């Protein structure tokens, strides 16, 4: 899995976003427009435009889906009350659910027909109201919040609530038949948190730090530390999971547009470096150049391992004419040193030179995918040779990675991969979704 983005989803928002999902590959996002109306944009095998859903919002919205085709949206009104609007084939009008909210609301749903809404009250505590066929009154869950809350449910009967507490640390309270106390999870939050869950026992929490960067902390049996996810956030984030190993996060940028970053399995080249001689272009640089180019095809490059090989007899390796499917005895000896690497992983042997002199050579024995790269290769040679390993051939175009005229002559870096080449690479067994 890899974090992808940021991508801009446009608009000019005057609040942080909200997000919900009723099925895999379905996202619904919401925000407040310049005229304080509710805006909606959804993903359903492609992003829609923005539609206005009316209302006059005095806070960020909150949204949740309890089933396929159902969305419930909440916001604080100009009267500080909680207001509710839902989609069930058509959009309802706005329903007043009362209360005196001092923050944006948060909402979670553990089953069809169940909603749990949270907000900070005038006393700084978190207040709770739920729907289970009928709306409850408001109950206080205590605490001293310095931000709006976030809420998520990973299964029936379970709710996790988060907020910034005293000292702006993340605080956490959960319901599992009864309400826990508040626990501090550290950090220094500069925004309200957002929370998502992709499975029972899995929580992901996001917030802007004092550096305006989005930070991430997760629970999968134990709490992680904080991970920086970059960006420059001007609003609190929103987060939702449509299924295992998938998180979609949203936040406002300094251009007031809504931005999107997501965690997902992606087609990935798993690369192992076996070093007989360190190349002139550092391996980290060559791998990054490869990532720069392959990202244009939606492919990730995972640098899995680096191993030093003490094989001086193969350091100037005979590669013959370097023809696809033809290998020399020395190539066979060299490529035998996979040393436990998986069959669909790619191994690059960094050698001093090849005989005859090539920048690199991608011919490899059957079942041992890989290439050799010579010490004097260019910054693009690694990606070029692995391109061959993934099934690409030379082209006569110096704007492209697979130029047969020498990657030293690439005229418009980073070089391109065209759509047909991307398809070939995606179809390779060496680019599994991970």
């Amino acid at each position, binding site marked *: 899995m890899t974090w992808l983005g*940021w991508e801009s989803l446009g608009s000019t928002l005057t609040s942080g976003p909200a997000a919900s999902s009723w099925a895999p590959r379905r996202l619904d996002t919401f925000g407040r427009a310049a005229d304080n109306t509710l805006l909606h944009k959804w993903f359903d095998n492609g992003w829609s435009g923005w539609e206005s859903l009316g209302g006059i919002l005095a806070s960020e919205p909150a949204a949740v889906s309890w089933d396929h085709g159902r969305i419930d949206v909440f916001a604080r009104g100009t009267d500080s009350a909680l207001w509710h609007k839902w989609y069930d084939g058509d959009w309802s009008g706005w329903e007043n659910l009362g209360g005196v909210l001092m923050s944006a609301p948060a909402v979670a749903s553990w089953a069809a027909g169940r909603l749990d809404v949270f907000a900070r009250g005038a006393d700084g505590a978190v207040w709770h109201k739920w729907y289970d066929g009928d709306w409850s009154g408001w109950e206080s869950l205590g605490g001293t919040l310095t931000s709006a809350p976030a809420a998520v449910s990973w299964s029936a009967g379970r709710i996790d609530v988060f907020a910034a507490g005293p000292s702006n640390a993340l605080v956490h309270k959960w319901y599992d038949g009864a309400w826990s106390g508040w626990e*501090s999870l550290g950090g220094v939050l500069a925004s309200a948190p957002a929370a998502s869950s992709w499975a029972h026992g899995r929580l992901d929490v996001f917030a802007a730090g004092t550096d305006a960067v989005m930070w991430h902390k997760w629970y999968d049996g134990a709490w*992680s530390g904080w991970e920086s996810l970059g960006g420059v956030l001007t609003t609190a984030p929103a987060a939702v999971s449509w299924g295992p190993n998938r998180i979609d996060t949203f936040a406002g940028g300094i251009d007031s547009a809504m931005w999107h970053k997501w965690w997902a399995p992606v087609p990935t080249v798993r690369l192992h470096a076996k070093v007989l001689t*360190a190349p002139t272009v550092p391996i980290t640089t060559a791998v990054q150049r490869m990532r720069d180019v392959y990202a244009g095809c939606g492919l990730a490059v995972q*640098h899995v391992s680096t191993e*030093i090989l003490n094989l*001086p007899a193969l350091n*100037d390796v005979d590669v013959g004419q370097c023809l696809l499917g033809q290998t020399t005895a020395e190539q066979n000896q060299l490529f035998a040193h996979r040393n436990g690497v998986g069959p669909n992983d790619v191994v690059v042997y960094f050698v001093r030179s090849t005989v005859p002199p090539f920048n690199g050579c991608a011919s490899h024995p059957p079942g041992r995918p890989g290439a050799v790269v010579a010490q*004097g290769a260019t910054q693009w040679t690694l990606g070029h040779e692995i391109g061959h390993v993934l099934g690409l051939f030379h082209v006569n175009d110096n704007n492209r990675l697979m130029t047969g*005229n020498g990657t030293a002559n690439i005229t418009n870096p980073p070089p391109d991969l065209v759509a047909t080449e991307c398809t070939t690479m995606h179809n390779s067994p060496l680019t599994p979704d991970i």
Partner: protein
Amino acid sequence: MPVTMEEVRAVLDPEEPDYAAAALLGPEALPHLRALVESGDPMLASKAAYAAGVIDGDEAVEVLREAAQSDEPAVRVAAAATVANLEADASAELLEGLVADDDPGVRRVARAAVPEDAPASLRARLEELPDEPPEGGDAGAAGSGPPTIGGLMPGEQPGRGTMPGERGGLMPGESPDDMNG
């Protein structure tokens, strides 16, 4: 038609040069190959040295004599790998030096290039030399990095806030003590 440097580079610049095409450039390419051997670019110099061997001719011997004296072992390896393409006398003369090279990789490739019917002087030279010692390592080190792909938000600096996803990270302004809830 004179051969230009551009034509020579067109053959040698590819990642995997076609040395059969290099041979077709003919002796008029040799001054350019000599310039490339002297260029200080080890990759191009290696390719040029190898190409000189497949072209052959008197000036090719001079190009390879220079390549065999290069400070870059990879260039000397290329010379050793192609020297067998020269006429026997010239090949033997160059191999007498290359089989005794300071670099074990050059010696290995040069010894492999010695023909079975090598001149007596070359055979005598080989007999003078000690057996190759057991091979030792000469590999360098290399680093690694985390996978990242994606764009930047407006105002975001490349590389900012891209800590690897290691557990135990702290947010800015947070001290380790804050973690104790």
